[in-house]
């Protein structure tokens, strides 16, 4: 037990470069595997959270763009969604990495983008924005006509109509599907070091360390289930947070109607 505490102090923050420099090399214990894989989760949470928050704002903008009547705005928005929803994430990582490298060659200001910390975050941000925009667009299309008519009747126009009527209703309708997108996004963060970006000084995400142990012990049946366990926990936390937000979004509705809103099969992801 004491050994394990020592392991946790040595490796608990290894994924961000704090603690022992050398990874364990022999006599692997369960404690080491739990600690290091858990330490790697820091990266998954970092990528997932920041991409989700930043992606949310872009997604709302792109969704409004796709719903716009002006083709100069609508067409780019449609293409953005189509490209990011239509291609596998790992191909996006591949092209982004090459693009960032050549950008770095001509403009040194882009050099942080070739590291996973910022480059992969950018790709995940654009990717989730594409998926979420489609969800929000679907929700925009299914806003009850009565709601917007009522807004018109109150004399609401432009920004205040959007902020008070359109936007809250859109969020409410999109929320269950958006929860799923959040889960998928956190799962996708495991691809960063797996297929996209190089790992620097053995600082990697949970899957990176799980692979490290699988590679050293040649036994995939311990590290990967540990990784799976961490992700199930993470998913439960995401569902809880989004469920709480869903309650906030629907707090004005009578409780019977609220239950019905839990499932909107308009769009899942």
């Amino acid at each position, binding site marked *: 037990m004491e050994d394990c505490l020592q392991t946790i102090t040595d490796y608990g923050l290894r994924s961000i470069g704090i603690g022992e420099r050398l990874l364990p090399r022999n006599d692997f214990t369960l404690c080491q595997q739990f600690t290091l894989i858990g330490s790697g989760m820091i990266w998954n949470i970092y990528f997932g959270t920041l991409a989700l928050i930043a992606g949310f704002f872009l997604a709302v903008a792109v969704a409004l763009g796709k719903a716009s009547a002006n083709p100069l705005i609508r067409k780019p928005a449609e293409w953005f969604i*189509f*490209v990011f*929803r*239509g*291609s*596998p*994430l*790992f*191909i996006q990582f*591949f*092209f982004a990495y*090459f693009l960032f490298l050549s950008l770095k060659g001509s403009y040194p200001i882009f050099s942080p983008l070739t590291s996973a910390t910022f480059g992969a975050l950018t790709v995940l941000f654009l990717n989730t924005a594409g998926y979420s925009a489609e969800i929000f667009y*679907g929700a925009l299309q*299914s806003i009850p006509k009565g709601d917007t008519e009522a807004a018109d009747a109150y004399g609401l126009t432009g920004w205040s109509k959007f902020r008070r009527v359109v936007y809250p209703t859109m969020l409410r309708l999109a929320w269950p599907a958006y929860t799923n997108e959040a*889960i*998928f996004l*956190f*799962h*996708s963060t*495991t*691809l960063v070091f*797996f297929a996209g970006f190089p790992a620097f000084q053995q600082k990697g995400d949970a*899957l990176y360390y*799980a*692979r490290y142990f*699988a590679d050293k012990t*040649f*036994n*995939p*049946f311990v590290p*990967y*289930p540990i*990784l*799976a366990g961490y*992700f*199930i926990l*993470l*998913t*439960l936390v995401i569902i809880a947070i989004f469920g709480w937000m869903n309650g906030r979004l629907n707090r004005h509705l009578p409780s019977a109607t609220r239950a019905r809103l839990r*499932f909107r*099969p*308009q*769009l*899942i*992801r």
Partner: protein
Amino acid sequence: MFGNCADPGALDGLAWLGCYLTTGKHMSLYGSLGTVLLLLAITAPTALLFGFGGATAARSHVAPLRWFGKTYIAIVRGVPDIAFFLFFVIALDQGFEYIRHHVLCPEWPDTVRQGNDFVVCAQAKLPLGNSPQWVHETYGFLLAVLTFAIVFGAFAGNVLFGAMRAVPRAQLETAEAYGMTRGQVTRRVLIPQMWVYALPGLSNLWMVLIKATPLLFLLGVEDIVYWSRELGGAKQPQFTDYPHPDWRMWYFGALLVFYLCFTKVSEIVMDRLMARLTLGQATAGGEAQRRAGA
């Protein structure tokens, strides 16, 4: 392929490219395209079946069955598919061989786990050690299908579970009022009516499934991404008759176009299917169709 390809070093321009694009390795690339499409064609209905089973179990009145259904959906959905693929296929394979071992060689003296080794008797091997390569490949392919189906079945189960709850209560009550039993209500009303609610979720799942196929290589199936990486990389061509630098950009570009086209076609088909299913339904879409027709 062609007679004039015997000496690629002497060729240039289009002739070289023609020969290059028809090497055995490229043929494998084109063949793997078929593999991917076949996998999708088999996996989709299988996953739907698993999802249907999971959703039905999750709604069951028998508690253990309900727990099983809910746990299956919750756990498999919670795990990133890569993590699942990295150990699950080996586990599945060992599971099958373990069962066969106990059925086929009950009097085997040694234990199955010998240190790190997993040893079953020769008759229990799957496929048998002396079977030809194509049997091994087919077996690997079927394992991949099963794994994909289990993973995506959980997502489909989640969608179908929601869709079953979205069927208007009034429709089910009407059926009950006609004196139908619970089973009859499920078969005659719930299942036919739920598809319109399930289709948007299922079609998105299909899109996700298409984009998960690059992970096939983890399951031991040589897919288009594997061959593109092999052919595009600069490492191997040095040792073949067609040396070239790092061309992964071109190969992955072609893959990008393939996936985008596939997505587009899927979207068109799904839209048609949705229009067909919406016909006469008590939803906003159905109402719109009715008005347009009137």
